[in-house]
Structures are given as structure tokens and as C-alpha cells.
């Protein structure tokens, strides 16, 4: 817990003009809820954050609207158009039956709704399918961060024997056989058009356009007092104080893009397989975004928790202790009401996005 954020601010004279204005906004948005915690026992009482502290919390989650477009693969409309076709095209896979969208299903929060992914020939894989929502900002990619860029990530699952079981031969045959790919890539990459690397660039360009829209939480941050319930507002404060969620789920995407062991059982070494030699990276996995989290269950890298309530219970007391456990994971002693408030808050992170239409694939 950040003590500075949780203590009562008794020195209003040190507030800057901006902070004063921001505090005013916080007061409007937050109302009196933060100061009306009626907890069943004294030990569970949350120290009431000052208006300035709440304003700072809110400001730290304000959205970033500028979508990255890397110099090595600047986003263009034509790249995005072809990239979307490739993303939905099963002909890139070894079997011809699995596309990127098979696991990253837009109807399921760009995931698959399963505890762990299903790969080639129905093989059950070891990790939960992560969302590709907001991956434009999310490098490094994968649960273990083994891909430094979206371009490096894009063809990983296509080529992985256990996943799409594709091959360079199969991918190149597809893009050279289908005129829309062959001609489109020739226009975009005139020097050496038909390569796996260019397929990766196109898919990455499309993935960068998959951005979560404005959620009730964002409207609340902007000053809409009606956007969040009282329970959700209490949950927001808990998220930033007693529950310590924001120590890792920070920023507008609610992730630090870091790697932490959060005490889930299992022998998957996670990030330590990519960066051996650091105890703190054993069993450590990338902090997932919480955007649209209500629609993206089950949860965790192993898909072992079915509901957000189970997730809160895990962080409250359900984790296992071992040398690599993140020092941010500690018993929380949350009350049932506080747990409900946290879940209510997380429910406000879902955006009502425009439905994605699956493309008609070129022949």
C-alpha cells in the first residue's frame, strides 16, 4: 500500500493549482463515498484518502489515445485490411483449420473462453489464451514475454507445432496462391513481398487497431458522476489502497507490463524460462490488462479461476508462498463487502465496443 496515497491529507496549502482543480473534480466524481466507509470492524477500515490523493489516483488511469505505430512497420489502412484477412484465415495453419481468431475470438474478448488454449488437432495446451486487446502498447508479448515486438509475436503461434502447426512453406504457399495476398503484399513490400516477416507485419498492423473503447470507468474519470455506482467507487479506492491491485495493474490499460509470481500453484516457470537466473521471475507471468475483464474469464495464466470473485479471493488469501512470490502479494484481510466492491469496480472497465465482423476470405 502506498502510505502517501492512503493517509489523510492535512496540508491542503501545499496543493498546487492543478491539484486543487483535480481534487475538485475528484470530489464531484467521488462524492462522499470515500469517507463513508462503514466497515464491520476497526481493523478493516480503509484510511480515507484525501481528495488530492483520489485525484492523483484517477489521473493515473486516464486513457492514452495515441496508438503506437512503429517506424519499422508504420500502420496503414492497406496493411490493416490485409492483416485482418490473414488474422482470420485458417489456411496459414498446418491443418488449414485454425486461424489466429480461433483462439483470439473477438466475441470472447479476443480470447477463447477456455481455461487453457486448444491447439493443433485439439491438443489442450498449458496456458490460457491472452487477449490481444490493446497489444499495441503491450510489448513484450506472451505470458512469458518472449516476443519483444508485436511483429515477433504475430507468427509465433502460427509456426508453433502445438498451436497452429504452420510452416514457412505453408504460409508462403497461401500468400502466393491467393491473389489478394500476393498482389497486395507486392504493392506494400515491393522489394521482397512474399515473406513470413511481412505476414507478421500485416497481422501486427491489424492487431494494433484492436483497442478497447470507452468504458464507464473512463467516463467517471472524465467527470461523469453517474458512470460508477457507489460500490464501484469504493472498489476503485480499495484497488489503489488496501487491496494493492494498482501496484501491478497500473495505468489506463491496468497493467505494468511486468512479470510477477502471484502464487498460483503449478510447475510452469514462466518468465524464468526466458530470463533464467532471477528467482523473482520464477513462476512469474505478465500482468494482464484488466480492460473488458468481465468478459474475459476464466482468469490467470493457467485459467484456473473462473470468476472475478475467485480472483479477489486468491489475492486475499489464496496464494501459495515461495521464494519467488511477488513482495506485492500479501494477505489482504478483505471483508465480503470489500471483495464485492472490488468486483463491482472491475465490472466498470468493460467497453461497449463496435462488433467486429469476420471478413469474407479471398480465394
Amino acid at each position: 500500500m502506498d502510505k502517501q496515497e492512503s493517509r489523510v491529507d492535512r496540508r491542503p496549502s501545499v496543493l498546487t493549482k492543478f491539484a486543487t482543480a483535480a481534487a475538485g473534480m475528484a470530489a464531484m466524481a467521488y462524492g462522499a463515498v470515500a469517507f463513508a466507509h462503514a466497515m464491520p470492524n476497526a481493523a478493516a477500515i480503509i484510511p480515507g484518502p484525501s481528495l488530492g490523493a483520489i485525484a492523483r489516483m484517477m489521473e493515473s488511469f486516464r486513457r492514452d489515445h495515441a496508438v503506437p505505430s512503429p517506424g519499422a512497420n508504420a500502420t496503414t489502412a492497406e496493411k490493416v485490411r490485409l492483416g485482418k484477412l490473414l488474422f482470420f484465415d485458417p489456411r496459414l495453419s498446418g491443418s488449414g483449420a485454425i486461424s489466429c481468431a480461433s483462439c483470439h475470438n473477438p466475441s470472447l474478448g479476443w480470447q477463447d473462453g477456455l481455461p487453457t488454449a486448444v491447439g493443433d488437432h485439439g491438443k489442450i495446451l498449458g496456458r490460457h489464451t491472452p487477449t490481444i486487446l490493446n497489444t499495441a502498447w503491450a510489448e513484450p508479448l506472451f505470458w512469458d514475454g518472449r516476443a519483444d515486438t508485436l511483429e515477433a509475436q504475430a507468427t509465433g503461434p502460427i509456426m508453433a507445432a502445438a498451436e497452429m502447426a504452420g510452416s514457412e512453406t505453408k504460409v508462403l504457399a497461401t500468400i502466393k496462391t491467393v491473389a489478394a495476398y500476393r498482389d497486395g503484399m507486392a504493392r506494400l513490400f515491393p522489394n521482397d513481398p512474399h515473406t513470413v516477416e511481412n505476414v507478421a507485419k500485416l497481422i501486427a498492423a491489424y492487431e494494433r487497431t484492436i483497442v478497447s473503447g470507452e468504458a464507464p470507468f473512463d467516463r467517471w474519470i472524465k467527470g461523469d458522476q453517474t458512470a460508477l455506482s457507489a460500490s464501484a467507487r469504493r472498489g476503485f479506492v480499495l484497488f489503489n489502497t488496501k487491496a494493492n491491485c494498482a501496484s501491478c495493474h497500473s495505468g489506463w490499460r491496468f497493467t505494468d507490463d511486468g512479470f510477477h509470481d502471484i502464487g498460483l500453484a503449478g510447475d510452469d516457470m514462466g518468465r524464468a524460462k526466458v530470463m533464467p537466473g532471477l528467482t523473482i521471475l520464477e513462476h512469474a507471468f505478465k500482468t494482464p490488462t484488466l480492460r473488458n475483464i468481465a468478459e474475459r474469464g476464466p482468469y490467470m495464466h493457467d485459467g484456473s479461476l473462473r470468476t472475478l470473485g475467485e480472483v479477489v479471493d486468491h489475492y486475499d488469501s489464496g496464494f501459495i508462498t515461495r521464494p519467488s512470490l511477488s513482495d506485492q502479494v500479501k494477505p489482504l484481510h478483505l471483508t465480503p463487502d470489500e471483495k464485492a466492491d472490488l468486483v463491482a469496480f472491475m465490472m466498470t472497465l468493460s467497453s461497449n465496443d463496435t462488433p467486429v465482423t469476420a471478413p469474407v476470405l479471398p480465394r
Partner: protein
Amino acid sequence: MKTKFAAVAAAATMISCAAYAAGMVSVDQKGLAFSTGALTVASGTIVSFNNGDSTSHNILVNGNGVNMNSGLQAPGVSFKVPFLKPGTYQVMCGIHPKMKMTVTVN
């Protein structure tokens, strides 16, 4: 090795690419970022990485045969690294790999 962040917070302010003579130079870790992306120092300079965040960090230094790991660096803790051999070193946080910078030793 470890000193409180507050004790060194008043040290030199970093700019985007700064050059320093041998001595002590501070780099702050704040908001999941280093206070500079590139630093140039004289051989023998000690760089103090000061964790000003409320979350733990880690310092990995690689280059010129050096492979240094701070282990867990708790909030408020400084980790000091002597840069002795000329060349360029990559510095990153093993926990938050977006935190990266270079140190060039003249």
C-alpha cells in the same frame, strides 16, 4: 550498498542524454521508467539507481563482460553500480522490461 532513496534524491538531475565525470551519478526509477534513456559517464563513475516507485524493481546490467543482477530492489532502496570499463552497457529492470536505458563509459 543500500541507502534510502531520500538520502540521494537531491543528487544530479538527469537529462535525456547526459555526460558526467567520475564520481556518483543518480538515476531515478519513477513511474516505471528510468529518469534518462541514455547516460554517458567517465570510467570509474558509480551510478546509483534509486527506486522512487512504490513497487519493487530490479537492475540488470549487461555488456563488456559484465552481467550484474541486483536481485529484488525494494521501494526506497538505491542500488549502486560502478562502471569501470569503457564501452556501452544495457541496463533494464528484470521485472518491468520496458524500463531500459544505456550507460556509455568513456
